[in-house]
C-alpha cells in the first residue's frame, strides 16, 4: 500500500506552486527556465500517481513524452539564452523589456 492519490496530488501541487513562483518572481533567465522545469516535474509526478491509481499505462506513457519535451525545451531555451547574452550582455529579464525596431 502506498499513499492515497490525494497526497500525491498535494505534493504535485506544492511543487507546481513553487515552480510557478520561481518562474514568475525571479529575474534571472536561467532561474525562470528552472521554474518551468520544476512545473513539468510536478506534472510528471501527478501523471505517474494517477497511472498507479487507475491501473492504466497512459500516465506513464505521457510521462515519457513529457521528459522528451522537457529536454527539447531546455535545449532550445538555453540556446536562446546564449544568444540573448551575446546580444544584450545580460541575463536579467529586465533587460529584455523593450523591442528594437
Amino acid at each position, binding site marked *: 500500500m*502506498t499513499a492515497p492519490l490525494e497526497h500525491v496530488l498535494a*505534493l504535485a*501541487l*506544492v*511543487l507546481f506552486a513553487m515552480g510557478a513562483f520561481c518562474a514568475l518572481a525571479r529575474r534571472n533567465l536561467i532561474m525562470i527556465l528552472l521554474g518551468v522545469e520544476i512545473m513539468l516535474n510536478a506534472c510528471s509526478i501527478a501523471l505517474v500517481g494517477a497511472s498507479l491509481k487507475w491501473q492504466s499505462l497512459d500516465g506513464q506513457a505521457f510521462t515519457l513524452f513529457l521528459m522528451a519535451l522537457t529536454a527539447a525545451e531546455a535545449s532550445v531555451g538555453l540556446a536562446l539564452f546564449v544568444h540573448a547574452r551575446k546580444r544584450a550582455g545580460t541575463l536579467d529579464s529586465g533587460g529584455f523589456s523593450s523591442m528594437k525596431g
Partner: protein
Amino acid sequence: MSVTQLIFYTLAGVIALSTGLAVFQRQPVHAVVYLVVSFFATAVLFGLFGAPLPAVLQIMVPAGAVMVLFLFIIMLLGREEPKPRDLSTLRWIGPAVLAAVAGAAGTTLLLLPAHEATPMAMAKASARELGHYVYQNYWPAVEAVSVLFFVALAGAMFLVRDFKARPGASSDTQGEAQPGSQPGSQGDAPSGTQTSPRAGQEEAAQ
C-alpha cells in the same frame, strides 16, 4: 503506516524541501544542484509507484542530461554580478499570493477524512509492457517527438550562430570566430562544436 507509506512521505519531504531550497537560491548553480537532488528523489518516487522505466529515464534525462546542460550554460556564460535585491514588495507579492492559494488547496486535500483518502494498491508495469503499450497506442507521438528533437537541434544550432555577421562581411566575422581553423573549411563548424552536448543529450533522451 506501512514501510512503503513511510518511504513515500520521506521522499515527498525530500522533494519539497530541495525544490523549495532551489527556488530561493541566489546563484543558479546552487539551484541546479538542489534540483538534481529533487529529480533524483522523484525518480525513486517513480520506482515506488511501480514505474521502473520512467524512474530510470528520470535519472537519465532530467536529472542527468538537462541539469548538466544547465550547468554547462551557466559555466559558459560566466557568473553575473547579482543585482541588489529589489525591495519593492509589489513585485513578488502576486506570485506569493498565488502560491499560497495553491498551498492552501493542497492542505485541504491533505486534511480530507481518512475514508475518502484510500491508499493505493501497489502495482508494477515492467519496461516491456510500457514499451509495447507506447508503440501500440502512441506511435504517432513517438514519431512527432523525433521530429521535435530534430527541430530543437536545428533551432539550437541556428540560435548560437554569430548574428553580428552582415551578409557582405560574413566570411570575415566567421574567420574571427574560429581563429584556429582552416579558412576553407568554415561554415557550421563553430555552432556544431558548441551544440555537441545538446546532440548527445538528445540521443540519450531517445
